[in-house]
């Protein structure tokens, strides 16, 4: 009874829209987590690379006639190249200095997009023409859904490969102790540069994917608010884990849609709600919800008796 007005309102096309947004958020968040969760680098230029992906793909298509299948990878490569250059400077910084410097870069990119109006449309925003895939114009949520799912699936496959790779393990080691990592033979500089570059590439892909279903982009959509949203997803779900990030994207990504059901005068509280969720999670669940779900699985395993000649054997305290 109560659900019926809801069901009438939430038409399938709308659900597909939410699905597309969530898949884009997932790509964005997975990319940022390569830096935050895997390498422990608090770098916040991510939203700029996302913007490069959106504007790059859209403008290449609209101004130069470069099709999506070429324009999107080119834009992501451009984001990766800029990420690489940023990394050369960023590896000298750490903690709050790194956060500030990379965030300043994100803001300057936002400023550039806003100011360069002959190319980007500036403060008027940019109406994105629907791209075509194999001669079929996409543009609607229904048509974008399958290509979006394929993009996300490829990125998930790449991320799974990364978590099992030597590079992935090196990044996790750097996150936990740069000294132990370096003393074990890990090239800390090279690994961090790789992480920055991969992360920027993912943000570029996420940005490019937006042009498949989004019809409009404005420089205001590339600011601190969007960054906080992605950060909240990662932190709430659990950084450093693909499952955790996806969990966070699912929970936090549907929040704006749920808030849409709330009375209009509540909407001003939305940003506060994100800030509050982020704060509370950092204070009480620094490893995210995932850590609660997995707590029982990864604690100390009780020792079995085994034969052999252990040189330093310990009994449980």
């Amino acid at each position, binding site marked *: 009874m109560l659900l019926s007005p809801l069901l009438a309102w939430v038409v399938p096309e709308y659900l597909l829209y939410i699905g597309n947004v969530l898949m884009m958020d997932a790509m964005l968040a997975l990319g940022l987590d390569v830096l935050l969760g895997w390498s422990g680098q608090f770098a916040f230029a991510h939203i700029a690379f996302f913007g490069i992906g959106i504007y790059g793909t859209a403008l290449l298509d609209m101004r130069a006639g470069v099709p999506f299948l070429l324009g999107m990878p080119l834009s992501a490569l451009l984001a990766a190249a800029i990420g690489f250059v940023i990394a050369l400077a960023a590896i000298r910084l750490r903690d709050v200095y790194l956060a500030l410097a990379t965030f300043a870069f994100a803001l300057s990119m936002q400023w550039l997009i806003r100011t360069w109006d002959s190319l980007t449309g500036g403060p008027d925003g940019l109406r994105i023409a629907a791209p075509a895939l194999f001669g079929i114009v996409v543009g609607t949520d229904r048509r974008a859904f399958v290509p979006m799912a394929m993009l996300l699936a490829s990125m998930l496959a790449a991320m799974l490969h990364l978590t099992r790779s030597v590079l992935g393990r090196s990044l996790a080691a750097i996150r*936990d102790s740069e000294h132990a990592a370096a003393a074990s033979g890990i090239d800390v500089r090279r690994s961090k540069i790789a992480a920055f570059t991969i992360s920027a590439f993912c943000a570029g892909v996420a940005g490019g994917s937006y042009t498949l279903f989004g019809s409009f982009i404005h420089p205001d959509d590339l600011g601190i608010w969007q960054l906080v949203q992605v950060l909240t997803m990662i932190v709430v779900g659990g950084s450093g884990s693909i499952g955790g990030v996806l969990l966070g994207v699912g929970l936090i990504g549907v929040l704006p849609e749920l808030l849409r059901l709330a009375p209009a005068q509540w909407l001003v509280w939305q940003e506060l709600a994100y800030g509050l969720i982020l704060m509370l999670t950092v204070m009480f669940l620094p490893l995210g919800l995932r850590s609660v779900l997995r707590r029982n699985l990864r604690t100390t395993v009780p020792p079995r008796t085994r034969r052999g000649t252990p040189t330093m054997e*310990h009994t449980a305290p």
Partner: protein
Amino acid sequence: MTALFSIRDLGMRFGGLLALDRFAMDVAPGSIHALIGPNGAGKSTVFNCVSRFCTPFAGDIVFDGRSLLAEPPHRIVRLGIARTFQNVELLDRMTVLENVLVGLTSHVPRYIDFLPGARRIAAERHAVRQAEETLDALGLLDWRHATAGTLDFGRQKVLDLARALASRPRLLLLDEPAAGLRNREIHQLDRLLVDLARQRGITIILVEHVMQLVMSVADRVTVLNFGHRITEGPPEAVRGHPAVVEAYLGRDAHA
């Protein structure tokens, strides 16, 4: 016997503090060489110069005829020098097994991530087997899937050592391995160090405050205070040296 490892007139400054002042030591292959001195004497700074976390303004560090000062930090273990850390630098969000796999990094070719699946998996299996052998030898095999940060302190120290040993070093730098261990654990450490040096031929430099351990295992002892060497010799000779008594117990005890 020629030295495997030499530190020559090393000078290291932190701002206005002269942390090392023309410090020198020669380490014979296969020996256990203890480096002792009061807190702040510069012992860990010596290790940090060897690890290339610090760059000295003067002097040289030579391992196997090769200067280390031209090498970046991650190359040191490839040359055969591994270390542990005073405050246990564990990879605490990773599992025990992963910690030791990280220790094997220098034996894994860098292009491994780009190999086809089957060869990569075979290489990973091989690495896991080697890591498990190291864990087994140190009695940590049953904890291999535990998160490193959840181990008790004694096991964390053993894991730090396991990570270092996994690289199969020729020279092992141990920074206060006995600190915080119980008596029984110190006895086990004693046996382990002797075993590593005598059976496996690993040369060990041991920074340690637990004198009972130093006197029992060290072939030679170098005493460091205020950044320079006070004395060096076999343990029994160093123990009674007036400068050592003074540095450890103060002037009154000596008088």
